């Protein structure tokens, strides 16, 4: 399941909902991405972050990435939640949860979802600080991370 929303999410409640009523799940992995006050930008502390996205394409892209993860690993459930709008340091940005019978599948799938989301889902971050606003630049390390999953039927 995928969701894009302005409101916050509750990690515990999302995990509980995904597992609810199931006794065949053995492993649940969650990744929560949050706003850091020191984002390594040269302009100093971040006081606010604004997330813009491409409505329509974002949903399509996240569903495609989730479907690819489900094709590669035997998942019993998966979830991607991404916030848009204006956020503060410490706020949640993104949540990925994967459930599987075994931990390797849950770990690999969660990491795959994050790596692909970072490089393929049409979101853009703008950071605000004491010295002004700045669009966050894409990191080459994210591109490199995504390529580790490449194969013929990759979600490229």
């Amino acid at each position: 399941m995928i969701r894009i929303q302005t409101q916050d999410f509750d990690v515990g409640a999302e995990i509980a909902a995904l597992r609810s009523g199931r006794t065949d799940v053995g492993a649940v992995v969650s990744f929560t991405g949050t706003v850091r006050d020191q984002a390594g930008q040269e302009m100093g502390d971040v006081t606010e972050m604004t997330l813009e996205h491409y409505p329509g394409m974002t949903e399509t892209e996240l569903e495609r990435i989730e479907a690819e993860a489900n094709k590669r690993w035997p998942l019993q459930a998966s979830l991607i939640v991404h916030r848009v709008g204006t956020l503060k340091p410490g706020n949640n940005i993104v949540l990925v949860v994967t459930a599987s019978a075994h931990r390797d599948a849950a770990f690999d799938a969660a990491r795959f979802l994050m790596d692909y989301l970072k490089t393929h889902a049409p979101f853009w971050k703008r950071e605000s600080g004491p010295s002004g606003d700045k669009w966050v630049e894409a990191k080459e390390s994210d591109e490199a991370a995504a390529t580790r999953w490449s194969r013929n039927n990759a979600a490229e």
Partner: protein
Amino acid sequence: MRLLYFAWVKEKVGHAAEEVEVPGDVATVAELIAWLKTRGPEFAHAFERAEVIRAAVDQTHARHDAKIGDAREIAFFPPVTGG
């Protein structure tokens, strides 16, 4: 054809969306960018470093050599930075 701009591409162009009549000899994303750059200084500025700009044709990531065909919607944006 509907064109969309996001993040700093949108800021430089000065608007988020527009309907355009694309000349018939514009066949690829690269050619569309080249044509857009002739439409005014804001476009020339926004697409100055064309190689860093990403495109989506009908909401699917597309390379600059991709054909635009009879696409209804083409979007231009910087490399994504979500997550």
